[in-house]
């Protein structure tokens, strides 16, 4: 029984880690024509789901004419994912119709193009088709999760913006100077020995300087890579717990009585202090 409770608690904890959904509505998809694509919701959203379809239009027809009006969306893969038909046959036109449908959170990937199709004689004016949807906000920033659409492109884009300059020792002026100088100790072995010693020191100091410079450059690159990593990694790993943090502190009302005991102690100390101060004026015995 205890195990079961633990399992249930773990399951509840896991459930609470789910991210919250945001909700929105599209604009009038039929504003520019009687067919439309389903480009709705913010870009880079993941898990966008349609949860409602609302439409309104005014039929234009003669009462005696037959007319069917289909408002529908194709299903990706064939058929229709949403279809509503109004039969205006034998009915007068001119009176607008408004309908709303709750949809069972069907993923946007299943929704094909939408259309208002007319069978028979007549037309439709002032058409208005609106979709309501919900979506997961985890992927508003594509790099927040490797599973987000556009993640790879975002990472590559970021890497392209970073220019790393490789240090080429052969192009270092100091090293090339050193290499250009050919020291042949047998040429003038006896002349200016001190001068040769100075030259050697100079050469060695130049080499040291180049190595030091190379170290500084490579350290800079390393520091850049480290800081880059430390800047980016928390960006990937950060998980913000959702929910509401309610106030838990409860302050009881009522009167706070004076501390008479404290007052007495304070008064006694004051009296003692006054006595001590007055004692300095007492005549010496």
């Amino acid at each position, binding site marked *: 029984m205890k195990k079961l409770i633990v399992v249930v608690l773990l399951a509840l904890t896991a459930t609470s880690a789910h991210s919250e959904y945001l909700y929105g509505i599209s604009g009038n998809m039929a504003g520019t024509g009687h067919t439309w694509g389903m480009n709705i919701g913010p870009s880079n959203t993941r898990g966008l789901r349609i949860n409602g379809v609302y439409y309104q239009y005014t039929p234009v027809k003669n009462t005696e004419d037959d007319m069917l009006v289909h408002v529908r969306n194709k299903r990706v893969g064939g058929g229709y994912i949403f279809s509503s038909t109004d039969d205006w046959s034998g009915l007068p036109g001119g*009176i607008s119709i408004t309908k709303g449908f709750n949809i069972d959170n069907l993923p946007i990937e299943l929704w094909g193009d939408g259309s208002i199709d007319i069978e028979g004689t007549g037309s439709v004016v002032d058409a208005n088709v609106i979709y309501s949807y919900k979506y997961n906000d985890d992927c508003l920033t594509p790099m927040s999760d490797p599973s987000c659409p556009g993640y790879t492109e975002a990472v590559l884009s970021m890497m392209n913006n970073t220019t790393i300059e490789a240090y080429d020792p052969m192009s270092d002026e100091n090293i090339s100077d050193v290499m250009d100088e050919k020291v042949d100790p047998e040429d003038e072995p006896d002349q200016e020995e001190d001068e040769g010693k100075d030259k050697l020191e100079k050469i060695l100091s130049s080499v040291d300087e180049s190595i030091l410079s190379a170290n500084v450059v490579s350290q800079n690159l390393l520091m850049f890579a480290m800081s880059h990593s430390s800047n980016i990694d928390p960006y990937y790993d950060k998980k913000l717990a959702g929910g509401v943090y309610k106030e838990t502190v409860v302050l009881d009302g009522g009167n706070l009585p004076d501390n008479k005991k404290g007052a007495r102690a304070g008064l006694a100390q004051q009296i003692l202090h006054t006595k001590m101060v007055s004692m300095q004026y007492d005549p010496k015995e």
Partner: protein
Amino acid sequence: MKKLLIASLLLAPYIPAYAENAPIAGSVQTRCLITTDTNGVFGNPLPSKLSTASADGGVLPVIRYDVTLANAYLAKVTTPTSFDSSPSLVDSVAWTGSTAVTNTSDAGMSGYEAAKVTYGYTTQFDLTIAGSTWFSSTVAAVYGGTKSFPGGSYTAIVLAECIAK
């Protein structure tokens, strides 16, 4: 002893019982809901005329009836014949009014307009289909022939009723 017990059991039904009232409680959920979708506004195209028609600068009041039971209710909309509030008027006001279906939630409801019955200032619609129907009323008031309405605020009320058939 056995006989005595049987006799006691036979007598038991004749013990007088106390009277008891069993209450019956119930509630009826309304299946016809009336909502004001748009408040009307009087336009003042002439000094002597107030009108809700959009051509006169007014706004039509829109009333929505939501019916969840088909063929069970009549919608009665009565346009006003007096101001609910107005400055002091010293002359008569001539009222005209009409109500029409402007929007429906079902194609079949478009037939309501042709089937409506008008008497006096009241228009009656037979709500034969479950769903929502929007009605709007055009109201005009003309003051004392061609007299100008005195300045001030004017209000009038459209009465919408849902009558069970």
